[in-house]
């Protein structure tokens, strides 16, 4: 097998942070190559160097044995490298069809042929078995769809190398399988595919080879056969990590634990139909469902981000009318939103400011948290969640994707809420950190906090939930006790009774 | 009225396009015109151009479209009227210019012009300065506060002033800067002049009274006596100028009379009736000095 892309000795420094130091990679034609590493290990940076978004401080990149130094993504594209970056990097205001074709429109008499743009778009999406209204602006679709569109765009280029940076973070099982099918097909055609993910089973499902990065340096290149899960985790983290213990104390909630939040007949047109829900103090309610089943909508209604058309909301037994998220925050609710980039982080503010933002909002603008208290809080959570950052004054935008997610989580933990709503909080978070976050959630619940935990991962639902509530097609499909068997949950989610 | 859009009965429908309301002088001018062209004899269509020529042209077009009997307007600038005046002529609507003349290729495009002569005003100011300085030795140092750069009154007043003052080589214009016809700018620029020239200024010539009033404050704040240490002449003859003269702070103002409403009304009557009118009607104006100020002040309507 020949080397298509060969990178060696890559070094990149951002200010005081050394993101990469002697990283490398060797991609062969006709393989799917997984790039693994903890949050902040330098995976995305490596990809940015390969594709001309950033210039390396040192090191070489060879394509087909010829050194290349792309100075822009456009140049990398011309060299035959097609990329999906970690955050969706498309234009939200343009239509789906246009996002798929921007920069390479089919033309007629020198003018863009929109008919062919649309047809081409449908064809590209069809490869992923997606059927969208291609004329709608991209922003009107949820992140998961946007991610699929970004992947479809990358597939549209006839490239030698396809790079996918955490393409599956927002997708659920069905979408992931579609993607893998396409990836396998492309592998047959001789394309080299680089693939980043934090889901270990996905790595073993598709990849032919694994490269591991740690702290910006190359740990090694392996085949899945020679590297069992535990060894892979050890290579990434640098020490042994105990994986996936179940929760021992399921259903340990006292039946008379007070109900913190109760929703009765909550409805919103086009979003949710008459959903009832109770969350008790000290209880973790796991909320499951397919993409678009209404989980995020429910969370938004509970938090006052959207207004319900019908139904009532009771907080500790009293009726509440939440007109603004601020109302919810003042009453001790917290929502860690699904869309990190648009609704979560404020990229230009520092880690400290991002962490104290919600707590400060609850206190009001007049009563500022003393600076020493802010520093203390920020340091505490940076350490607790293992946020990798040069310091608490670093702008959050300079953190790696997973670390940004941890900061958003920290913001809400810092408010010490009565009810914590987590909408897919572990998205893009590495395996070790995930363990810690889930441990923290359980610990907080034991201290009496009520938690609503939304997740796309079956394993997380069954492991964490004292109760598992499932939504299907925007209605409540049913409830199962904690510790239920995975298969039963799955059946409820998919609707095969 | 001949036009379909015209008013009731046999009143004369007049479309009048005013430059704007940029100064007290202009407000007085508007008031005078509105009072003179009142119903029942006249049916006035008034339009304010907010100091923009294109707005005036739009207004004239709309007058033509409405079919008024006579059009009168105070042009923002001299040039650029050929096309629209041609349209008026084609529609058979006579045009009376007020306040300033226009340059057109075909003199028959307007019937008559009533108003002041900015160049002449500049000359008068200069003549007053020369008279005032009789017997004094040179060099006599003059500072000039110009109007808005490029505006017709500023250009013409400067030209007239230079033309006359240039004939006497005792005078030097040491500083000249725009004060945008406003009190605030007049004060600010004068402050800078005083700082730059020290006490070395003999005469101030301001293109309008407002700038002079602003400059007077600057002079006082610098510890000098306006009207005495620095002789001051300005143009327009608004009420504020007379007050300043009465207080001995302004030496002279060259009148530029805005109250031409009655004369304009008469011209419009004549033009509408098809009578012969002179091509140029001059408004009565003079130069006022401090000794006349007290007597004249109560007569000032603006």
């Amino acid at each position, binding site marked *: 097998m020949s080397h298509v892309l060969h990178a060696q000795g890559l070094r990149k420094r951002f*200010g*005081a*942070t*050394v993101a*990469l*130091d002697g990283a490398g990679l060797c991609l062969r034609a006709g393989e799917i190559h997984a790039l693994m590493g903890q949050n*902040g290990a*330098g995976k995305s940076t490596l990809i940015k160097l390969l594709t001309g978004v950033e210039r390396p401080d040192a090191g070489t990149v060879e394509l087909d044995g010829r050194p290349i130094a792309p100075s822009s993504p456009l140049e990398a594209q011309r060299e035959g490298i097609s990329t999906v970056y970690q955050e969706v990097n498309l234009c939200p205001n343009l239509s789906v069809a246009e996002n798929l074709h921007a920069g390479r429109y089919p033309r007629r008499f020198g003018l863009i042929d929109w008919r062919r743009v649309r047809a081409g778009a449908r064809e590209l999406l069809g490869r992923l078995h997606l059927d969208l209204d291609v004329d709608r602006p991209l922003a009107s679709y949820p992140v998961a769809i946007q991610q699929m569109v970004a992947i479809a765009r990358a597939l549209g280029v006839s490239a030698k190398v396809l790079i996918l940076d955490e393409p599956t973070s927002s997708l659920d099982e069905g979408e992931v399988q579609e993607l893998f099918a396409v990836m396998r097909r492309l592998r047959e055609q001789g394309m080299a595919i680089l693939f980043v993910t934090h889901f270990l089973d996905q790595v073993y499902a598709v990849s032919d080879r694994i490269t591991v990065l740690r*702290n*910006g*340096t190359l740990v090694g290149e392996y085949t899945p056969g020679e590297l069992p899960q535990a060894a892979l985790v050890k290579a990434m983290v640098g020490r042994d990590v105990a994986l996936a213990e179940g929760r021992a104390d399921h259903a340990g909630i006292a039946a008379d634990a007070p109900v913190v939040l109760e929703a009765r007949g909550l409805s919103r047109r086009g979003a949710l139909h008459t959903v009832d829900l109770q969350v008790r103090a000290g209880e973790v309610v796991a909320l499951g469902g397919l993409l678009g089943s209404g989980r995020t909508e429910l969370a938004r209604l509970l938090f006052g*981000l959207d207004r319900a058309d019908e139904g009532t909301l009771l907080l500790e037994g009293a009726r509440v009318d939440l007109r*603004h*998220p601020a109302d919810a*925050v*003042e009453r001790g609710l917290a*929502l860690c939103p699904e869309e990190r980039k648009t609704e*979560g*982080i*404020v990229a*230009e*503010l520092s880690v400290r*400011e991002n962490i104290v*933002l*919600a707590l*400060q909002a*609850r*206190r*009001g*603008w007049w*009563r500022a948290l003393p600076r020493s208290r802010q520093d203390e809080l920020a340091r505490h959570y940076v350490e607790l969640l293992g946020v*990798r*950052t*040069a310091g608490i004054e670093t702008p959050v935008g300079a953190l790696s994707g997973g670390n940004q997610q941890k900061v958003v989580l920290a913001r809400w933990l810092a408010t010490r809420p009565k009810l914590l709503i987590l909408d897919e909080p572990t998205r893009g978070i590495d395996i070790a950190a995930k363990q810690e976050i889930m441990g923290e959630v359980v610990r907080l619940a034991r201290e009496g906090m009520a938690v609503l935990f939304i997740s796309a991962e079956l394993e997380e639902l069954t492991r964490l939930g004292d109760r598992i509530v499932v939504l299907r097609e925007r209605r409540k499909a049913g409830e199962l006790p904690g510790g239920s068997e995975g298969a039963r949950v799955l059946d409820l989610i998919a609707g095969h009774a | 009225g001949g036009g379909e859009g015209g008013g009731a009965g046999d009143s004369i429908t007049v479309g009048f396009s005013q430059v*704007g*309301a940029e*100064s*007290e002088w202009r*407000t007085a001018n508007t008031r005078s015109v509105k009072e003179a062209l009142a119903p029942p004899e006249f049916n006035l269509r008034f339009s304010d151009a907010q100091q923009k020529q294109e707005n005036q042209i739009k207004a004239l077009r709309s007058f033509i479209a409405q079919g008024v009997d006579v059009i009168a307007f105070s042009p923002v600038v001299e040039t650029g009227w050929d096309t629209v005046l041609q349209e008026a002529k084609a529609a058979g609507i006579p045009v009376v210019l007020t306040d300033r003349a226009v340059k057109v290729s075909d003199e028959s495009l307007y019937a008559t012009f009533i108003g002041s002569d900015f160049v002449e005003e500049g000359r008068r100011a200069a003549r007053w300065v020369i008279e005032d300085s009789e017997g004094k030795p040179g060099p006599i140092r003059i500072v000039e506060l*110009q109007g808005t*750069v*490029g505006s017709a009154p500023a250009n013409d007043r400067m030209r007239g002033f230079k033309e006359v003052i240039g004939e006497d080589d005792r005078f030097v214009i040491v500083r000249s800067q*725009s004060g*945008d016809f*406003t*009190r*605030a700018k007049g*004060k600010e*620029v004068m*402050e*800078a002049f005083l*700082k*730059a020239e020290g006490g070395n200024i003999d005469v101030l010539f301001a293109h309008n009274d*407002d700038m002079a*009033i*602003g400059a007077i*404050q600057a002079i006082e*704040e610098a510890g000098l006596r306006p009207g005495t240490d620095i002789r001051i002449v300005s143009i327009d003859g608004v009420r*504020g100028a007379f*007050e300043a003269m009465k207080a001995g702070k302004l030496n002279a103002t060259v009148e530029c009379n805005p109250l031409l409403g009655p004369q304009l009304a008469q011209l419009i009557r004549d033009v509408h009736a098809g009578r012969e009118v002179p091509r140029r009607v001059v408004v009565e104006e003079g130069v006022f000095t401090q000794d006349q100020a007290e007597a004249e002040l109560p007569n000032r309507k603006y």
Partner: protein
Amino acid sequence: MATTDPDAQAPLPLHRRMLAHPLFWPLLALALLLLGNGLLNPGFLALEWRDGRLYGNLVDIANRAAPLVLVSMGMTLVIAARGLDISVGAVLAIAATVAAWTIGRMTAGGGTGLAPLFAAIGAALATAALCGLWNGVLVVKVGMQPIIATLILMVAGRGVAQLISGGNILTIYYPPYSFLGTGFLFGLPFPLYVAGALFVVLALLLDRTALGMFIRAIGHNPAAARVAGVRARAITLWLYVFSGFCAGLAGLLVSSNVASADANNAGQLLELDAILAVALGGTALAGGRFSLAGSVVGALIIQALTTTIYAIGVPPQVNYVVKALLVVAVLLLQSPEFRARVRALARRPARGGA
């Protein structure tokens, strides 16, 4: 992050920290302007104590800049929260006219003492704040784009002011009022105290409360700020009110300075100067990043430019060209990309020569 460079963690040397400070380049631009003036005109930088007052061009510049400084501070916060207020000039004119009208009414009615003064100040500031509230409601409640929402008041506001004044310049014959714009306190012009006081209060407010952080959060990512529980819309509304209030204060100073209110010309094109001041001071016009002190320096730069033009005595036709070139020079001085390019150019011949 893998490792952190040890030498990069050591505190930067003083000159490096100075260069990195966001106020450094605006201040340098101001200093260069003043120095240039000093070279052309040796008396320019002189300060002199006369009759218990401080005299000199520097005092004049600061004094003249006071209204712009005030307006720029309000504008800074509005822009930081992703807004824009182009009605400030008109609001200034309204406030000035209301003040002059109130004084005219009260003194004609036999009002004496300081009552007319305080009535005028109160009426003008209240009206100005109301104008700001109007803008804020259009932007926040109705959801109009800020430039259009404030354009309405920009156009109509002068009309309202002229309606009050009857199209005349209202002259104020009431000496106590003149103190605001022309009075001296401890040897310095009174407007400096007004601008200074507002600056200090605002700086303290932004520093000691969470307001600054909230405004930056709103400016950078309004959606995220909302989800975090920041009452973004309410805050934005109040920022417009504050901007109106600042314009009102400026209106008091301007009308007091010339003892008259000119509804048509007061504050003409002030919105452009204010936005320019804000931008020169390092605030991002797209929202988020802002610097209050920077805007003050920006306003001083603009006034220094104007004074420079008067001082060097160029003919008025050339005013605009000089101003344009100086503005571009100041902008380029502040652009890191431009400085990098200049450094690269400077290095190349040096290397070739060696």
